[in-house]
């Protein structure tokens, strides 16, 4: 996509052929990206698409391998966020990169305080701070520490600082990820105002509704490459999702069928039942039933609330509304220990950080949950531990020289199998798997899918999160589709198909109304 306007004025920001590799992995491969005066431009893509690499290479946090960046026709090569800011490119991250202990005014004028007689002129600084924040509708005590205000306010302060430092391009990296609806509305108002002042805004987000509500143009990246740039009004949601997921979809898929009731399903009572279950700023209240011998898939884009749903079900995060019941009896999930007592197991998405206990042996990792459930006073005899470990090593074909090998030395697939073994050893009734096949070699991938099917056949209930739609379709009896932190559809039986899922992801929000054409 090259800029089609060869006329007089060059675009505000033009990136051409930008490339960046890390240790041989091509994170950005000849990417073009154009931002025009007075537009809000969404930069979209799934995991590993290269969005953050693009931003970091643009602002000089990373040194680019190839490509050019021009701002209003002038080639620039900043060597860091600070220098980029001086070159009129401001960046505001999700975790605001200001100093929470300093006052709002100090943050606004950090490094460029108004001086008088060689001293910081605090009076002037306060007055100017109030003036700078006025257009944003913020009237707050500028002498109070920034950390005392909400994330939304902090973000607006960060934006105000960037704009006041004469930013022409403003990059907002997932600014809405931790905001509630009202705060999002305030932020959008600010963004629209800035757009009308001619500033070009790059908006990185996972929320498609927000893209359609706000953005003029969309650029999609996938696997480090440019997929395309479109005007929002000319890009149907379905096409956008297809671009992001990398699928060519038939026109027939453009309609979604309403979920048909499946009488046979409802005959059996659910093992777990959630009603109005949710957590503010994490996932909207949802209803969910899972029956024994059934795999329920959770599908959606990154950040859609899939992982959050799984974590709520296991009690890793605590719900702040709704009810949960197991076998028809109301239960409270205050933490993983409650869930484990109820017979739940959970393999988290981030295996290294939240799953394995790296320096401990495969044996210890496998028996950990069983031992924890028994309590420390009733230790599993060493012989029993070895039996359990050996049995699962054989059963799941965990490739390790011996059971005493520290688990951190195993490959990702074998770590995942050991984690599955950890839960299988507790004989769970509900197993929750978050991205069970991510980062796993092809062989192990197939084995894990076969295992999921077998467990299900043995009567276990499973809740599986995956971004591999074919995979979800292969083993799920029902698929819950999420978008923008909301459960938007539940597909069952014959509806469980990749194109249906994509269509549901791309469906228009019922309440938000038509996006402007």
């Amino acid at each position, binding site marked *: 996509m090259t800029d089609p306007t060869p006329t007089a004025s060059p675009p505000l920001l033009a990136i051409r052929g930008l490339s960046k590799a890390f240790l041989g992995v091509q994170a950005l491969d000849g990417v073009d990206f154009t931002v025009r005066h007075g537009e809000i431009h969404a930069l979209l893509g799934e995991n590993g698409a290269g969005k953050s690499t693009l931003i970091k290479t643009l602002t000089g946090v990373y040194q680019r391998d190839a490509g050019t960046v021009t701002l209003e026709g002038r080639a620039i090569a900043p060597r860091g966020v600070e220098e980029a800011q001086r070159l009129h490119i401001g960046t505001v991250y999700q975790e605001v990169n200001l100093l929470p202990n300093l006052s709002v005014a100090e943050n606004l004028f950090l490094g460029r305080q108004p001086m008088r007689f060689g001293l910081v002129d605090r009076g002037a600084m306060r007055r100017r701070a109030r003036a700078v924040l006025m257009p944003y509708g913020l009237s707050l005590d500028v002498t109070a520490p920034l950390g005392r205000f909400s994330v939304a306010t902090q973000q607006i302060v960060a934006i105000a600082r960037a704009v006041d430092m004469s930013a022409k391009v403003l990059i907002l990296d997932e600014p809405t990820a931790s905001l509630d609806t009202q705060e999002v509305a305030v932020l959008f108002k600010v963004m629209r105002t800035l757009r009308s002042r001619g500033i070009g805004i790059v908006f990185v987000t996972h929320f498609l509704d927000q893209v359609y509500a706000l953005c003029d143009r969309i650029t999609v990246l996938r696997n480090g490459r440019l997929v395309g740039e479109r005007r929002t009004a000319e890009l149907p949601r379905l096409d956008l999702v297809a671009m992001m997921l990398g699928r060519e979809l038939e026109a027939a898929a453009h309609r979604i069928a309403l979920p048909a009731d499946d009488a046979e399903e409802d005959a059996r009572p659910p093992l777990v039942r959630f009603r109005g279950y949710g957590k503010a700023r994490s996932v909207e209240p949802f209803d969910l039933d899972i029956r024994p011998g059934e795999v329920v898939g959770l599908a959606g884009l990154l950040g859609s609330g899939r992982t959050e749903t799984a974590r709520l079900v296991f009690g890793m995060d605590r719900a702040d509304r709704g009810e949960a019941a197991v076998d028809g009896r109301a239960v409270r999930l205050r933490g993983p220990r409650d869930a484990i007592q109820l017979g739940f197991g959970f393999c988290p998405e981030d295996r290294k950080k939240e799953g*394995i206990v790296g320096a401990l042996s495969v044996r210890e990792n496998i028996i950990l949950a069983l031992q924890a459930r028994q309590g420390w006073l009733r230790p599993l005899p060493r012989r029993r531990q070895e039996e359990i470990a050996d049995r699962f090593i054989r059963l799941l074909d965990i490739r390790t020289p011996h059971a005493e090998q520290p688990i951190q030395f195993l490959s990702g697939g074998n770590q995942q199998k050991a984690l599955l073994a950890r839960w299988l050893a507790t004989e769970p009734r509900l197993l929750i798997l978050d991205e069970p096949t991510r980062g796993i070699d092809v062989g192990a991938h197939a084995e894990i899918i076969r295992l999921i099917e077998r467990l299900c056949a043995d009567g276990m209930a499973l809740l599986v999160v995956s971004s591999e739609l074919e995979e979800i379709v292969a083993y799920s009896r029902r698929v819950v589709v999420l978008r923008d932190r909301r459960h938007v559809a539940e597909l069952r039986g014959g509806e469980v198909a990749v194109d249906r899922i994509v269509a549901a992801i791309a469906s228009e929000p019922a309440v938000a109304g038509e996006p402007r054409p």
Partner: protein
Amino acid sequence: MTRSVSGPSRTLPQYGALAAVLLANWLLFPDFFSIRLQDGRLFGSLIDVLNRGAPVALLAIGMTMVIATRGVDLSVGAVMAISGAVAATLTQAGWGLAPVLAASLAAGLLCGLWNGLLVAVLRIQPIVATLILMVAGRGIAQLVTEGQIVTFTSPGLAFIGSGSFLTVPMPVVITAILLGVTALLVRMTALGLMIEAVGVNRLSSAGAGVNTPVVLIAVYVWCGLCAAVAGLVVAADIRGADANNAGLWLELDAILAVVVGGTSLLGGRFGLLLSVVGALTIQAMNTGILLSGFKPEFNLIVKAGVLMVVLLLQSPTLTLFLPRPANPRPVRAPAKPESPSPSAGA
């Protein structure tokens, strides 16, 4: 206490260091290993090493477990002062031995509980959380003793410091008992596994259902108890509670003992016996310096030099050159997995 996984090469540097220091002492002072009976009590430089090493060894036992959870307890020296102060003051006030011991141990437990709550519940970083008691604890001890050395004459309490059991000095006996009890407690239950799991990865352990707050509180409480015992031993030894100096800087010696014993400050695997060996190595060094007749100005330099050698011996880069142990109990995963039926009982 060392686990079956840890072959001889893992523990070689620790025992080797102790042996080397003892050997050096013998070269400097030929009578180093000579032991005789004095008033029904073993008497000799080697006994001094054990006896004087006891307080740090006691601290190291508790500290090992705290460090295994990726924490650290800086307050143990101050807790020693508190427990000694309580014991001496109550003894002087005419209390009997049993209630005096109970009161000082309770004081240690309470201190440990305080630390544990700060770390586990309020999630304050251990180094900061225990710093509070490190500073305040000595002040508390000074309040108890009113800033003086409280001397007592009770033979019962003094026995803990200078008595003997089957000719072995009491501090050594007490250390051995506490080591044994602690080892039983962590290895005969699942506590050891949980301590290591929490130390390696607190998030993963919590996700696997380990009650991480309880594990953390337990290790700090136990560490407080060990410190209280050490404080009793020191107070009983000098028949007085010196709130200003009892246990001063010993928290650092205890941490050093654990490190010399090979437990990583990053948490995880721990060896109680090895930490005690570490404490004895440090004490053997101190005793050797005292026997050597060097000028006191050299004490710290000699100590630092020897420690550097010991720690270098343990450095991962250097251990690469040591022979690896054979793999214990290889379990070969068969080429063809059996038909998986995992729900058929574990």
